[in-house]
């Protein structure tokens, strides 16, 4: 974690922690997208999503362990291991998310909304216990494969490390790709159509179950990408990381307007800033309280979120 660049200049401090906040926020955004897309299409808050993210980080951790990777070595080999982690965690999380939908949520598609919600909490507990069994109850060190060196040089007043760059380099292209997919492809348009009116979508000949499975796959894949990035960035993982990061990401999704894709990204960047700036100006121990205060304020005063559409159209 980068420290104060120059504690004597308040503006530099602000700038430094803004950069950190946006970097963290873009990581939250990848997780928040999985919540918001699934909610948009099946109106389910998938509480297991954060824990799916946690399991992804254990997949990456286990793979690095199999190759005996513990710390940075040859940069080319490390780059290969990092790619391997992504190549394993992304399909793992995508497939697991689709499988959970198929086995748990799909049979409850026409049940009252509370039934899948409670089931999601159940899945969350199952995942968390799998994580506990897999990684133990203690924090584990995720190999530190990406450099902490300041890209601007060690004497520069602002720190922006290769790690920060990696986070941006993973999150931004994925968000751009998602936007292009949802806006400009036939399946992406079908996804928006299904979210707006599932019955009408069926009448168009859209197989809505395929669309829903695709949504879970994309949400899971983004969580998988986020999980590896998180491990490489924070370097500590445990079975509990899904809970906290999941709640932050969920708050981000609600803040932006649940079901709204740009909203989730905006909300996540704001939450990232709140966490980062809050730790400087309010105190580290208050950051969770700040985030949940935002959640409560949003739910009370603007439940549709910053970019959320009006309540669903019903004729």
């Amino acid at each position: 974690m980068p420290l104060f660049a120059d504690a004597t200049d308040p503006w530099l401090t602000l700038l430094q922690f803004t950069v950190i906040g946006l970097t963290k926020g873009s990581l939250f955004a990848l997780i928040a997208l999985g919540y918001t897309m699934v909610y948009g299409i099946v109106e389910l808050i998938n509480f297991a999503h954060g824990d799916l993210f946690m399991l992804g980080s254990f997949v990456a951790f286990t793979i690095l362990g199999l190759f005996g990777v513990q710390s940075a070595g040859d940069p080319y080999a490390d780059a290969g291991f990092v790619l391997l982690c992504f190549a394993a965690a992304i399909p793992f999380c995508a497939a697991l998310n689709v499988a959970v939908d198929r086995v748990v949520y799909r049979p409850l598609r026409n049940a009252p909304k509370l039934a899948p919600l409670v089931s999601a909490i159940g899945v969350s507990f199952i995942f968390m216990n799998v994580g506990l069994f897999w990684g133990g109850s203690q924090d584990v060190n995720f190999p530190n494969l990406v450099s902490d060196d300041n890209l601007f040089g060690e004497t520069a007043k602002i720190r922006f490390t290769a790690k920060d760059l990696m986070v941006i380099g993973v999150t931004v292209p994925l968000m751009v790709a998602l936007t292009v997919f949802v806006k400009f492809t036939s399946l992406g348009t079908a996804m928006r159509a299904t979210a707006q009116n599932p019955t009408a979508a069926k009448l168009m000949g859209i197989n809505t179950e395929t669309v829903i499975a695709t949504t879970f796959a994309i949400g899971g894949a983004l969580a998988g990408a986020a999980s590896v990035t998180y491990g490489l960035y924070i370097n500590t993982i445990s079975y509990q990381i899904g809970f906290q990061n999941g709640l932050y990401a969920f708050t981000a999704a609600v803040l932006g307007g649940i079901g709204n894709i740009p909203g989730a990204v905006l909300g996540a960047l704001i939450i990232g800033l709140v966490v980062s700036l809050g730790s400087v100006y309010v105190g580290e121990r208050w950051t969770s309280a700040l985030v949940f205060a935002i959640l409560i304020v949003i739910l009370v005063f603007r439940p549709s979120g910053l970019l959320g559409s009006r309540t669903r159209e019903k004729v």
Partner: protein
Amino acid sequence: MALLRIDNLNAGYGPVNVLDNVSLTVDAGEIVAMIGANGAGKTTTLMALSGIVRPRNGSSVVFDGDHIESLPPHEIVRRGLAQSPEGRKIFPRLSVLENLNMGAFTRKDRPGIAADLAKSFAMFPILGERKHQAAGLLSGGQQQMLAIARALMARPKLLMLDEPSLGLAPQIVVQIFEVIRDLNQQGMSVLIVEQNARMALKFAHRGYVLETGRVTMTDAASVLLTDPRVRAAYLGE
């Protein structure tokens, strides 16, 4: 042979039966109207035909020579049975163009889709002028035009229309029905469900009267228009 033949269609929601052995046919090239009061089961009939409401055991729906009563909705659309639903159900936050493209979701023939888009815009020029706007911004009449054009984008063999006149100004209703007649003259078969019985029977070849889930009368539309029971119950005379 009939394009659509329904025999003993039973359907409903949960334990409640809405349709009671509905039987009906539509021949190729016909406009058939189904009239009836609110709650008679008209929309349920169309939803059962589209596979949204599952027909109960023993129901038979033969479309273009194949049984479709147990197929999922997307298979039914693929076979050429498309619907413009009650309340229009356009996608409000998709553009007009995207709505029309969704109508063609089951098709892969790009040149054919482009040609049908051009046809939609020729039929309803306002949709062409506003094609990049969100469909939710259209007026009620324009949304109805979009719903019909969207159903036509599937290039159906039979077009089902559920209450196309609902909530529209009288001039717009006439305009919509004239479009339906033009489509029919170009060879489109149409099954139309309406509470505006006078309008529907004026434009249809044959009609069915549906009362609490049963077909109680069927005849040529011109005969139904002069039938004293129909006049008393549905034409307000």
